[in-house]
């Protein structure tokens, strides 16, 4: 934390300018609050005490339930006072206290009285407070008044009711949706803010009804919208309608409206329209031009917020339409010296995206001056932009690499340094000419690197790339220095790197042996163990011989198991006669939400080992299934799917299913939750109709004996399927159970129950269920090492498709494989694309797929599918999956 967030009064030493809250103490204020109970109320005094209470609450002081309730009771007595100022304070403190007070109900009658008052201001405030403390039952009682309030002629009352509606929609949607007619009327209000609030609420009420939103937009774009805020909302809803209308040909609907908003008098509206236009899917240069023009004007505005908004939008446009933004480059260059560093950083990164090869050097000069006075998080953004620029203009690698190495030497935190190192690594990988200078920069960096993680990663990378250079010996000094100067972790990494040099470069081997022998006397166990291991594997005891293939695989081979899975399996392993079997470790990579959030097309991080996944649930499933005797002879679990929901959200019973795939069996695990407190379910099972899944035969099922309220239970159904066949099919499911009433006061269930059924959604077993997503770190190497022996290539027409990206994602989903090297992302407007996939097929067979797509003007997509696998039959199976779909 940057500053101590202490109470203001604690560090006050200047008596002359003392705070009115000096020495304020909760206990004393609570004592003072007794003044609320006086028969003769002093409004001024009461207001002061309420202010003190507010101050305490704002300072983070929490009241116990007893304290809050006591104050709350006292405050309600203040409704007796007719003093307007005090009444306004009472409304505020009730709102602030209500979440922690139990007895809100006692204030309801006073508020209901105020809600029907002739004084408009009482009505408006009472509505806001009531909506804050209301529940479904009370809301039904006051609904009539709220509906009236929405169309009240006083805009303050109408707005209070509408904003209440926006909040209540989250908790009681079915009630608020009944106010649609009144809200519709309020949208036509002459009061600007009422229109704004009504429009927001109406759109939220109708958001699932595309036609209704479309009608709303159509009528409002023709009419008058008074408030700029409402106009901004309308632009947003219009964009949504355009997105959903998905028109491929002819004029884009509502474009004229958006374009006309560029001439609105409010800057907020102009900007919103410009941004909406830039975000239209498949926007043309003609459509973009007027929007870019107004954004360019904003770049030189005196208001920082406008400059920021404009440059931020242009930054995004530069990703997809760099040429459209080049006209603004001069304006953006002047923003590099903007006092607001956020604006300057955005300007620089935009320029890096739009600049041409000739402007790179000039730009780098400007950036060098700029880098010294910005914070690390901005620097990281700049480093990433420079990396992209270098990949775009490989001939400029020299100046860009120099820039990166210079900033690597300067002060900076871990994340910043990591970004630079990652960038250098990526440049080394992608630009062969940059390799030698890049490796030397990294070597110099580890001479004085304070981050163990980065040192070890660089050493690992040096071990892979260094031996392939023209003069590997020059790196040895830097590596061996680490053995003397660093901590044990780095020393151990250095030993491994030295061994890799020894393995790959025969000429260096004798000298490496000498160095490794010295490491045997290290003070750390791991360093000594590694040195001994490598000396033995490389034959350091005897004569210098060529390193054999197994040793190279040991030193350089990929560990094709996610580390997190290995860790879990090792933790579960109990020492016994039977040695730990690494083949028993699951290879499935669990999907990670973080990865999905990555920007499409983003390069994988340079050094980073695959990010650690969440703890594996595979083991949990495996343990669960192996504990059930009926499934004990099914063999080893190949894969478990992620849960598929079979019920809608907020239904009486929540059921999802996990598909467990074995060689000759499929087990459906239905996870059930009973969400009705008044019911106990017994003998719960799922009746599965497999008439649309001919290859499957039900073998056994296991019901849940008892399913009390809110306690998850699992029922299983197992099917047999032919061995080695990717059987697919559709299953319809019916939940069957005996329901017993539960007495809510005692929690006891009645003795007699009634048999009942509940229809669930259908479930499908698809080809992708037989494939595990297992990535490879270097696809090309993996592809080549797999060899052509079992390669199967064929071409397919995929017919007309919405876009190339859609076709690519459809095929990835169909096969259920792991996209490699970011190839799942398709550049906008590209006509062809290559996608690389990797996976393990049922029977633990590794499969690699190379997909080449092309799209024609008529949106017909053609695909060439090349499969390499360890088993010919699997290659055929992959082609069959594609051809049958």
């Amino acid at each position, binding site marked *: 934390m940057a*500053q101590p967030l202490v109470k203001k009064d604690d*560090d006050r030493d200047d008596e002359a300018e003392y705070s009115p809250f000096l020495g304020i103490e909760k206990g004393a204020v609570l004592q003072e609050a007794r003044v609320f109970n006086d028969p003769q109320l002093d409004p001024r005094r009461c207001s002061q005490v309420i202010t003190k209470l507010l101050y305490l609450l704002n300072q983070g002081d929490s009241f116990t339930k007893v304290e809050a309730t006591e104050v709350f009771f006292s405050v309600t007595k203040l409704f007796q006072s007719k003093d307007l100022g005090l009444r*306004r304070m009472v409304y505020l403190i009730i709102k602030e206290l209500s979440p922690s007070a139990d007895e809100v109900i006692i204030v309801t009658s006073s508020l209901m009285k105020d809600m029907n008052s002739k004084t408009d*201001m009482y009505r408006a405030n009472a509505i806001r407070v009531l909506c804050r403390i209301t529940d479904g039952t009370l809301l039904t009682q006051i609904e009539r008044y709220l509906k009236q309030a929405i169309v009240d002629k006083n805009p303050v009352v109408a707005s209070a009711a509408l904003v209440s509606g926006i909040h209540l929609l989250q908790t009681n949607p079915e009630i608020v949706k009944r106010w649609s007619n009144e809200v519709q009327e309020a949208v036509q209000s002459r009061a600007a803010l009422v229109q704004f609030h009504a429009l927001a609420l109406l759109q939220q009420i109708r958001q699932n009804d595309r036609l209704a939103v479309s009608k709303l937009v159509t009528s409002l774009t023709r009419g008058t919208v008074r408030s700029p805020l409402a106009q*901004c909302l309308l632009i947003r809803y219009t964009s949504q309608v355009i997105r959903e209308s998905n028109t491929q040909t002819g004029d884009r609907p509502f474009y004229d409206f958006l374009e006309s908003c560029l001439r609105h008098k409010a800057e907020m509206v102009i900007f919103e329209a410009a941004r909406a236009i830039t975000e239209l899917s498949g926007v043309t240069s003609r459509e973009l031009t007027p929007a870019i023009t107004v954004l360019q004007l904003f770049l030189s505005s005196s208001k920082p917020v*406008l400059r920021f908004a404009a440059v*931020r939008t242009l930054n995004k446009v530069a990703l997809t339409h760099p040429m459209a933004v080049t006209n603004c480059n001069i304006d953006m260059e002047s923003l590099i010296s903007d006092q607001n560093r956020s604006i300057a950083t955005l300007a620089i990164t935009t320029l890096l995206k739009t600049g041409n090869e000739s402007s790179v050097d000039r730009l780098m000069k400007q950036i060098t001056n700029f880098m010294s006075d910005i914070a690390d998080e901005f620097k990281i953004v700049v480093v990433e932009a420079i990396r992209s620029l270098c990949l775009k203009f490989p001939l400029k690698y020299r100046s860009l690499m120099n820039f990166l190495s210079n900033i690597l030497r300067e002060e900076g935190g871990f994340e910043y340094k990591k970004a630079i190192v990652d960038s250098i690594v990526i440049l080394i990988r992608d630009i062969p000419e940059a390799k030698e200078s890049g490796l030397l920069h990294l070597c110099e960096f580890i001479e004085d690197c304070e981050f163990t993680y980065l040192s070890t990663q660089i050493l690992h990378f040096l071990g892979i790339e260094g031996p392939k250079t023209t003069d590997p010996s020059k790196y040895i000094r830097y590596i061996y220095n680490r053995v003397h100067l660093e901590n044990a972790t780095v020393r151990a990494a250095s030993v491994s790197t030295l061994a890799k040099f020894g393995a790959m470069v025969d000429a260096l081997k004798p000298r490496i042996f000498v160095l490794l022998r010295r490491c045997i006397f290290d003070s750390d166990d791991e360093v000594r163990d590694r040195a001994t291991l490598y000396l033995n594997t490389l034959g350091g005891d005897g004569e210098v011989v060529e390193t054999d293939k197994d040793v190279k695989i040991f030193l350089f081979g990929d560990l094709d198991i996610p580390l997190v899975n290995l860790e879990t399996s090792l933790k579960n392993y109990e020492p016994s006669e039977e040695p730990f079997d690494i083949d028993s470790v699951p290879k499935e990579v669990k999907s990670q939400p973080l990865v999905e959030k990555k920007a499409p097309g983003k390069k994988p991080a340079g050094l980073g080992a695959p990010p650690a996944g969440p703890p594996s649930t595979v083991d949990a499933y495996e343990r669960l299934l192996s504990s059930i005797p009926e499934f004990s002879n099914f063999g080893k679990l190949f894969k478990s799917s992620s849960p598929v929901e079979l019920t809608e959200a907020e239904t009486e019973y929540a059921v999802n299913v996990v598909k467990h795939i074995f060689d000759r069996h499929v087990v459906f695990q239905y996870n059930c939750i009973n969400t009705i407190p008044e019911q106990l379910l017994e003998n719960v099972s799922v009746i599965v109709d497999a008439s649309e899944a001919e290859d499957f035969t039900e073998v056994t099922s296991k019901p849940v004996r008892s399913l009390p309220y809110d306690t998850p239970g699992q029922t299983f159904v197992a099917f047999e399927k032919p061995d080695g066949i990717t059987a697919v099919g559709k299953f319809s499911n019916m939940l069957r159970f005996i329901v017993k009433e539960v007495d809510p006061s005692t929690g006891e269930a009645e003795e007699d129950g009634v048999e009942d059924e509940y229809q669930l959604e259908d479930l499908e077993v698809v080809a992708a269920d037989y494939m595990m997503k297992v990535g490879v770190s270097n696809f090309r190497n993996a592809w080549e090492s797999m060899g052509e022996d079992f390669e199967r290539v064929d071409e397919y027409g995929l017919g007309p498709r919405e876009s190339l990206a859609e076709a690519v994602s459809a095929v990835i989903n169909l096969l259920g494989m792991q996209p490699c090297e970011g190839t799942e992302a398709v550049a906008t407007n590209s006509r062809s694309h290559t996608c690389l996939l990797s996976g393990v097929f049922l029977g633990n067979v590794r499969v690699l797929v190379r997909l080449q797509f092309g799209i024609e003007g008529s949106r017909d997509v053609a695909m060439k599918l090349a499969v390499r696998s360890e088993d010919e039959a699997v290659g055929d199976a992959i082609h069959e999956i594609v051809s049958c779909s």
Partner: protein
Amino acid sequence: MLLAVLISNSEGNILIERFNGVPAEERSHWRSFLVKLGADNLKGSRNEELFVASHKSVYVVYTVIGDVYLYVVGKDEYDELALAEVIFIITASIRDVCQKPPSERLFLDKYGRICLCLDEIVWKGVLENTEKERINRLIRLKPPTNI
């Protein structure tokens, strides 16, 4: 959604904070992030000069008025321009209540009324009022003049 309105003194001590839709465990993170942002940029800046930043999909607009620093945080429809509107009305109301850009002492003297103004401007993350004259009347439970 207007995620937060936060007012601190120039030393980073919180005077008023209102969070909406921000989980309790994330609040202290936001608090220190905003205070640092102010400490880095607001010292020596002009009264009511706007500063802006964004982090992922969240926007921050902040400024100084008298001796107090003021931050508003928003996302979705509350982007930088909408936040500028919000901060503008908050500063206008503070100036109105205090009758000048306030010292910290003056701000605390008018604490109750400033809380009322905030209550009229932002309610649970939604902008409710944007005119200072109207707000000035509403906090005294007087109806707006333009009805």
